[in-house]
């Protein structure tokens, strides 16, 4: 807990108060971008099955992400083009790591 007083707004009123560490470190909400594909679990990239610029149909397997001893197929969410690949085979990645940028057709 930090000792200095900070503002907290509840129903338009500004209160002077201390913040907790949890409040200070809370994650700011960001609207998800459908063109960015993030890892849903931390793990290791086993195999990448696509290349940049490639056209891919919805449901096709893009890569294999191994986590908790399971080989997870990461599939293309929509028909589209692979814009950029941010990962390499064998790379260990955390959760919510940006793996691919795509462009919807």
């Amino acid at each position, binding site marked *: 807990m930090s000792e200095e007083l900070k503002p907290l707004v509840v129903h338009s*009123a500004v209160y002077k108060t201390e913040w*907790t*560490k949890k409040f200070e470190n809370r994650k700011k909400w960001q609207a998800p971008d459908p063109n960015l594909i993030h890892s849903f*679990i931390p793990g290791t990239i086993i195999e990448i099955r696509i290349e940049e610029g490639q056209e891919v149909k919805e449901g096709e397997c893009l890569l294999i992400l191994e*986590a908790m001893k399971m080989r997870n197929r990461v599939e293309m969410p929509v028909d589209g083009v692979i814009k950029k690949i941010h990962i390499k085979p064998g790379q260990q990645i*955390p959760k919510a790591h940006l793996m691919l940028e795509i462009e919807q057709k």
Partner: protein
Amino acid sequence: MSLKRNILDLRKRKEEVLQGGGEKAIEKQVKMGKLTARERVRAILDEDSFHEYDLFVEHVARDFNMEGKVLHGDGVITGTGTIYGRPVCIFAQDFTVAGGSLGLMHARKITKIMDHALKMRVPLIGINDSGGARIQEGVNSLAGYGEIFYRNTMASGVIPQISVILGPCAGGAVYSPALTDFVFVVENISKMFITGPSVIKTVLGEEISMEELGGARVHAETTGNAHFYAMSEMECFDQIKKLLTYIPWNNSKKAEAFPPQEPSGEFKIEDIVPSDPKLPYDIRHIIQSITDGSEFFEVMENFAPNIVIGFGRMDGNTVGFVANQPKVLAGVLDCDSSDKAARFIRYCDAFNIPIVTLEDLPGYLPGVDQEHAGVIRHGAKILYAYSEATVPKITVIIRKAYGGGYIAMNSRHMRADFVFAWPTAEIAVMGPEGAANIVFRKEIMEAEDPEAMRQQKIQEYKEKFANPYVAAAKGYIDEVIEPEQTRNMLLHALAVSENKEDRGPAKKHGVPPF
């Protein structure tokens, strides 16, 4: 002559078992800054009051070359003793014997003393210091854990159950403490986690130290698994003994009464609260201005500090306090503070401890993170706990009592027995700023000087609704009192509630929003 020989033989056998894991293992334990299991038990209990049982229990493992191994007491010490002259059951895992690992007989010793505690209706203290399941005993050790968890659950709400984490407590083992009423941790010594750092690293690639993952501070501040945090084992034992002075020995008794005492006079109740409802103060000073000897024994001090819970005495009797803390996050309710308060309310209700609620909050914490973390179902716990509780329930509204926060904090509408308000109380659907913006939206928008109009409307709303008298006119609060009268009103209300009888409808149990 033969009797003498038998006695000498007994002494020799005892002496051998009392060595635990032997000199080397004890040396290692001491090097880690830890007391041995027997030293811990002796330090918690009254001097020379400990009686140990099942000293000669042997493990029954036969696989993996275990048959030849001797594990004294199978790695756990169990028995009975007294604290301030009153009986308790206790067990302490002995890390010097096979790392305190839990096998079948180790678990049997624990469940035996648990059954004893429940039957005798005395508190159970469990000291955890164990590497976890004894792998060589396979599924038998899992069965042992399960039998302990089951007994923790059955004893819950009947006898006080106290867990002391004085070493590692990992994997399934953590669930016994999690099921008990109060968990004590000590800096640098306590470690609790489901999955350790090494597994997390190999499986998920995340690197974290044991201390950062599940050390004492983490559980006291972040996870809310621990209720009391100490810098040393001895400080921890003092906390346990102090806690036991505030709580009854079982659910059919009341906590022991102490000689009544006046507050110390250090805290002047009229000087603590700023008149501007947007400025903070420390609600604990209000509690200390009304309790006997100005003493307040806080529970979960470092977790969700926007609500304060703990025990104090009034006229010698234990009272559970639940109070919004304007000093932190303006005293809002959120997921963590709702969980914290709700469990404490249920504890007090189960053990016949009257609840005094001190209210000063602007409502629930706004934010996407809170909504997505489930502030609806977490917040509902506090409503459930207050509504369900049948112990005497008294509320004092000090300043803000807005919206859902007003309803949640033991309002008249949820079976409060007494609701008092200070003249500074503002009982309204929301604060003047928010309300004026909505009610007078059109007037403000159409005004030549919207800001001036806004301020004027805020002022109008403030004068009309930001007071206790609208609620008092409806009988939602019983009396508007001067701050100085707070202690006397509470003493009176508690005295009137002494023989309270109140029952909900017959049911197997409710379905609280766990």
